[in-house]
């Protein structure tokens, strides 16, 4: 995994290469795609979870409404949190496989020969 061995006389320093990649359109697209998915999704699941906690605290009557048998809104709402967690995880995996991995692999391959001068250990 490690690429600590310095390549012989790189044309430009590693730092310059990283800066160049970071400023490239391809990388900007990757960053936009990733943030465009994870940020709204994080806000969405957090609000959905917050709604659940707030209803548990302040809407006891509603949460206690029986739907069928002894199954009430609170239980269904709680189980829906499980469902939404599983669904978001699955959506993200599908998104990352299709939209993130190919671009990341391409950029990494382009950077392949770059020298990594590991400044700090780690």
């Amino acid at each position: 995994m490690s690429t600590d061995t310095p390549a012989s006389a790189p044309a430009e320093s590693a730092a310059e290469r990283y800066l160049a990649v970071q400023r490239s359109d391809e990388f900007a697209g990757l960053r936009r795609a990733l943030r465009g998915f994870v940020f709204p999704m994080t806000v969405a699941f957090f609000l959905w979870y917050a709604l659940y906690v707030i209803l548990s605290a302040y809407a006891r009557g509603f949460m206690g409404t029986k739907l069928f048998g002894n199954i009430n809104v609170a239980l269904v709402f709680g189980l829906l949190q499980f469902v939404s967690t599983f669904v978001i995880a699955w959506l993200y995996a599908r998104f990352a496989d299709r939209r993130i991995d190919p671009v990341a692999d391409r950029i990494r391959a382009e950077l392949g020969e770059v020298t990594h001068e590991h400044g700090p250990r780690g």
Partner: protein
Amino acid sequence: MSTVLAAEAGSTTARNLTITLFLIFVAITLAITVWASRQTKTATDFYAGGRSFSGFQNGMAIGGDYMSAASFLGIAGLIALYGYDGFLYSIGFLVAWLVALLLVAELLRNSGRYTMADVLAFRMRQRPVRTAASVSTITVSIFYLLAQMVGAGALVALLLGIKPGTTFLGMDADTAKVATIILVGALMIIYVTVGGMKGTTYVQIVKAFLLMSGAIVMTLLVLAHYKFNLSTLLGDAANASGKGDNFLEPGLRYGVESGDALKTFYSKMDLLSLGIALVLGTAGLPHILIRFYTVPTAKAARKSVLWAIGIIGTFYLLTLALGFGAAALVGSQAITAQDKAGNTAAPQLAEALGIKFLGGDLGGATLLAIIAAVAFATILAVVAGLTLASSSSLAHDFYANVIKDGQASERQEVNVARISALVIGAISIVLSIFAQSLNVAFLVALAFAVAASGNLPAILYSLFWRRFNTSGAVWAIYGGLLAAVVLVFFSPVVSGAPTAMFPDHDWHWFPLSNPGIISIPFGFLCGWIGTLVSREHDEEKYAELEVRSLTGAGAH
């Protein structure tokens, strides 16, 4: 309906069987540890298990690391005694994994090497940031460790059925507690110093398998008893609880409504505060974060979190059946007679189910023994992960990068990590023995609060905010850490309440048990202000961090 744990008839059988099963677990895990030590040659082997685990293996290990005694025994007990509110806890613990999946796991795997601080210090001045990260890692891990070890001590007397006045191997209940704490501590030190990350990971995988198997079997038996009708189970649990429909609704444990308007207000604030800390804490727990380094790529890190979400989510669904099953089949009176906090609900349920399905007292004793042994395995796997996280940080962050300024050899570093594990383990044993008579269950919630208030802001700013700098990282970590610890110190869980750590004293002025609702925003605010007061900025290192974290270029 109620059963008395380890009733005299089955008592000796159950006790011997529990001990035998536990010894088998210990023997197997020690054998794995010795095998793992032969495979552990480099620092990467010791800290990150050679990065050789698959996504599925690491997903299991994450489950084994995360599903502590607090979630297995604690949540089942909470549901058994307070009904719905225990479920609320497990939902927070599960949803939290989305933060780790979407924002942290892959970026951390790509840009870090062994510890949380590798990412935090990537584009910062090493010494101040690594020192802060080390302090926070050790604080969080020790809090968590103490809660687990004291819990193990308290459990042993109950699970082995050592009652006041009776003895076991010549030990009375108090001596047995101390002996258990020392035994658990000694085993975790051996797992970590000898087996490193590889040994610890296998211990966690074995434990996750045992825990899931035990929970699945018990759930099937509970559901079979109710002919797979969830509604009947819930109805029976509600009736047996004596609280009727309220048992199936939120509000018996958290956000309790009382006649006093101010009390009710604080109680509901406390519920919101707990909810936020649960969901934001996980992705800042150092012992969870270092698990992402044990796989070869970011894609494998993603897969491990997906497996972890599946395993942990399934487990929490099972605890629903276990908790309500215990409420219905064991009954809260029989549970509180054993343990006021309800921690023995799951083992007691196992005994009741064994008596019903496996043929009388012997069956009861057998199932009880199996679940009790699983509970000990659970504790061992978690404490090993915590010890590894804190000793890694002490060796890699503090010794190698702060004291030695990055000049220590791999060999020296790993030796220091082993010594650190020994020292941290020894300190935890001593602290746990002193703390065993105190109520320290709140320490798990405090660990989550510190992780969410100090570590998470620093991690997220590091990965996503270009302007973030050394000063911001240091402010965020110390600010969040101090806010959480100080607020809890002056809260009713430490003094001024009958259930407090020091029930006979009262210096509390902060009304909430959970500091998250204040300390988490405070941590983020500190990180923001700290950043703005410093002009430091390293554009080149930020470019490297961003490119590496998103693409995996140059990943270790």
